[in-house]
C-alpha cells in the first residue's frame, strides 16, 4: 500500500515538473496580437473608496474602444480590453498586472489608475518590455528618469505646481499664497514644486498645510489658514476631500482669496458635492473640453456605449484620451504590429493633437534625456461660473 502511494506520488511529481518545463514552450509571434484581435489590459479601482475615479476611467476606455471596434477595428483587429480591479491597493496591482502580462498575455497596458499602483508596476512592465501608455497619475517619477516602455501623458505635479504659481503670480497678482496639500507622495511633490517656483516671483508662501488623506474635518487646518490671511490658496486635494474643504473654508469665512484646485478636481462631481461653495473656485486642467457641448464628437462616442445623453466626466475623458492616443499609436505602427513598432510609433509623436488630447510629444528613448517621456507640459485654468466649469485662462507653460 505504502509503495503504491509513493509510486503515485513520484508520478505526480514527474508530471508536474514536466508540465512546468514544457508550459512555456510554445510562444506566439507577438504576445497579445492575433489576426483579428489585440488584447490589452488596464488596472482600475473598480471597487473600494477610489472607485468613483476608477469606474469612469474604465467607462471612457470602453466607450472609445467599442467605437473603434464597431468601425472595423485597427487593420482588421478588434481591441479586447481586460480590466483588472485592484481597489487602489498597490499590493493587488502588482499581482493583477502580473496576471495580465503572464496569464492573459496582453500586448500592452493602457491607463493604469493611481500613483501608488503605477509606481509599483512601472519597473516590472518596463523590464518585461510591455508598452505602458498613459498613467492616471501626476507623479513625476513615471517620466523622470525615462523608461523605454512607459509613456506618461498627464502633466505631472512638478509641472502643475510650477504652472499654478506662475498663473497666480503673473495673472492674479497674488502676493500671499498658501498651499494645502495631501500628505502623500503626490501632494508633497507639488508642494516642493510650488516652494521652488515661488522664488521666481515677488510672492510669498504664507502657509503650507499638509492634510491627512483620510481626514474629513478640516476645521483645525482652516483655522490656521485663516490666520495666515492669504490672497490665494492652492488646494492639492482629491475628490472626497476637496469639496468639503472648500465648503468648510467658505463657511469659516475664507471667501475672498482665490481657490486654485489641482487638475484631478476638474469634474462635475466637484460642483455636485461642493454645491454653492463651488462658485468662483478655479481649477487647473489639461484636457480642452467644453462639457456643455453635447454634440462634441467624443461625447457622441461616449453616448454610443453608455446611452443617449450620457456625458463623460473628467475621469471618463481621461480614459478616452488614453484610448485615443493608444489607437492613434496603433494606426501609426501599421499592420505588422509589434511592441517595438508601437514604441516607435509613439516616439514619432510631436505636439500631436487629437480630438481630446492636445500637444502631446515624445522623443526617441535616451536614458540621459529627462524630457523624452514627458507627454504634456502645459495647462490652462477653469473657473466655476453659475455651476459650470468655464475656461478662464489660456495655456500656461512650465516656467524655468
Amino acid at each position: 500500500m505504502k509503495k503504491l502511494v509513493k509510486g503515485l506520488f513520484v508520478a505526480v511529481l514527474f508530471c508536474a515538473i514536466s508540465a512546468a518545463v514544457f508550459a512555456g514552450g510554445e510562444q506566439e509571434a507577438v504576445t497579445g496580437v492575433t489576426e483579428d484581435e489585440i488584447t490589452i489590459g488596464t488596472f482600475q479601482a473598480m471597487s473600494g473608496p477610489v472607485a468613483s475615479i476608477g469606474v469612469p476611467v474604465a467607462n471612457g476606455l470602453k466607450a472609445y474602444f467599442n467605437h473603434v471596434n464597431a468601425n472595423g477595428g485597427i487593420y482588421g483587429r478588434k481591441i479586447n480590453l481586460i480590466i483588472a480591479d485592484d481597489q487602489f491597493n498597490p499590493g493587488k496591482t502588482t499581482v493583477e498586472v502580473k496576471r495580465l502580462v503572464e496569464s492573459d498575455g496582453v500586448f500592452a497596458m493602457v491607463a493604469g489608475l493611481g500613483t501608488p499602483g503605477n509606481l509599483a508596476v512601472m519597473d516590472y512592465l518596463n523590464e518585461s518590455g510591455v508598452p505602458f501608455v498613459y498613467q492616471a497619475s501626476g507623479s513625476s517619477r513615471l517620466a523622470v528618469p525615462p523608461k523605454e516602455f512607459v509613456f506618461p501623458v498627464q502633466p505631472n505635479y512638478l509641472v502643475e505646481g510650477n504652472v499654478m504659481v506662475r498663473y497666480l503670480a503673473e495673472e492674479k497678482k497674488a502676493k500671499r499664497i498658501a498651499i494645502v496639500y495631501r500628505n502623500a507622495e503626490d501632494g508633497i511633490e507639488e508642494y516642493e514644486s510650488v516652494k521652488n517656483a515661488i522664488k521666481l516671483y515677488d510672492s510669498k508662501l504664507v502657509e503650507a498645510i499638509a492634510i491627512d488623506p483620510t481626514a474629513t474635518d478640516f476645521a483645525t487646518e482652516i483655522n490656521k489658514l485663516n490666520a495666515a490671511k492669504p490672497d490665494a490658496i492652492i488646494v492639492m486635494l482629491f475628490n472626497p476631500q476637496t469639496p468639503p474643504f472648500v465648503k468648510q473654508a467658505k463657511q469659516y469665512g475664507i471667501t475672498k482669496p482665490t481657490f486654485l484646485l489641482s487638475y484631478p478636481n476638474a469634474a462635475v462631481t466637484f460642483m455636485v458635492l461642493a454645491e454653492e461653495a463651488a462658485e468662483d473656485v478655479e481649477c487647473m486642467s489639461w484636457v480642452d473640453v467644453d462639457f456643455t457641448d453635447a454634440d462634441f464628437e467624443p461625447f457622441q462616442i461616449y453616448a454610443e456605449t453608455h446611452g443617449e445623453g450620457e456625458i463623460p466626466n473628467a475621469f471618463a475623458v481621461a480614459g478616452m484620451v488614453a484610448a485615443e492616443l493608444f489607437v492613434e499609436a496603433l494606426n501609426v505602427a501599421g499592420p505588422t504590429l509589434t511592441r517595438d513598432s508601437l514604441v516607435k510609433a509613439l516616439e514619432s509623436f510631436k505636439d500631436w493633437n487629437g480630438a481630446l488630447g492636445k500637444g502631446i510629444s515624445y522623443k526617441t528613448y535616451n536614458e540621459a534625456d529627462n524630457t523624452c517621456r514627458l507627454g504634456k507640459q502645459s495647462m490652462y485654468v477653469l473657473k466655476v461660473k453659475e455651476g459650470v466649469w468655464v475656461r478662464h485662462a489660456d495655456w500656461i507653460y512650465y516656467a524655468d
Partner: protein
Amino acid sequence: MLVLQSIILGIPQGALYGLMGFGIALIFRSVGTMNFAHGNAGMVCVFVAFSVFTATGSIILSILCGIIVGFLLGVIIDKALMGPIKHLSHAGMLMITLGLLMIFEGAAQLIWGTDYQQFPELLRGEPLIMRLGENKLIMPLNDLLITAVAVAVSIIIALYLKYAKLGIATRARAQDPIGAKVVGIDTNMVDSLVWGIGISISVLVGILIAPKTYIHPGMMGNMQIYGFTAGVLGGFESLFGAIAGGLILGILEKLVGAYISPDYQLSIVLIIIIIMLAVKPSGLFGKKSSGRV
C-alpha cells in the same frame, strides 16, 4: 485664541463622538455586547435615508425613514443573530459583530456603490462669528445644530431611562437579568428595544456628519473608533460618561491638531485609550473597575 477656537471646534465634533459612544455603551451596558458593527449599521441606514431623500426630496421624511430602519435593523440583529448566541463567549459575540461590520460594508458597496453621495446640511446660513478684538471665533450653524441635537437626544434618552417604565426595566435588566425575569420583564423584548435604540442613535450620528464626510461605505469607520474611545474615556459603566468622554475627546483632538500636528490626531487619541484602559478601565467617570468585562 487658537485654544478657544479649538475648543469651540471640538465641541460639535465631540458631541457626535459622545453620541456614538453613548449608543455603543447603551447596548453594552444593557445587553452585554460590544457592538463593533455599530458605525456600519448606522451607515447602511444613512444610505437608506439618502435613497429616500433622492426619491422624495424631503429631508424630514428621509431622516425619519433612516432612523426607523435603523431601529428595525437593531431589532433584527438582536433577534436573528444575538438571540441564539447569548450563551456564547464574548469572543463569539465580538466576531459576529465584526462579521456584520464587513457584511454591512459590502452590502452598501453592492447596493449603492462606492461613490461619495451628497446629503444636505440641516441648517445653512452665515456662521456665528464672535469678535474678540483682533480675532474672531467662528461656529457654523450646522455645528450648532449638531451640538443641540446631541444634547437633546442624550437628555431624552436619559429621561426615558429614568422615568419610563420600560426605561427602568432596561436598567433593571442590565443590573440583574434573573431579577428582571422574576418580576416579569420580557428581557428579550428589552434587549431588542435597546438594540433598536442603539442603532437608531448611530443612524442619527451618521445623518449629522453626512454633510461633512459625504455618504459612502467607509463614512463611519473612524467615527466608530472615536465612539469606542469616548466610551472608554468616560467609562462604559455610565452612559453619560460616554457623552462627557466624547466632548473631552473632540476638544483634545482639535488641540492636538492645532498644537502638535493633525497627522498625530488619531494616534494620540488611540494611545490615550490604551493608557486609559490599562490604568483605569472603568473610565474617568466609572464607579468601579469590575462589572461586565
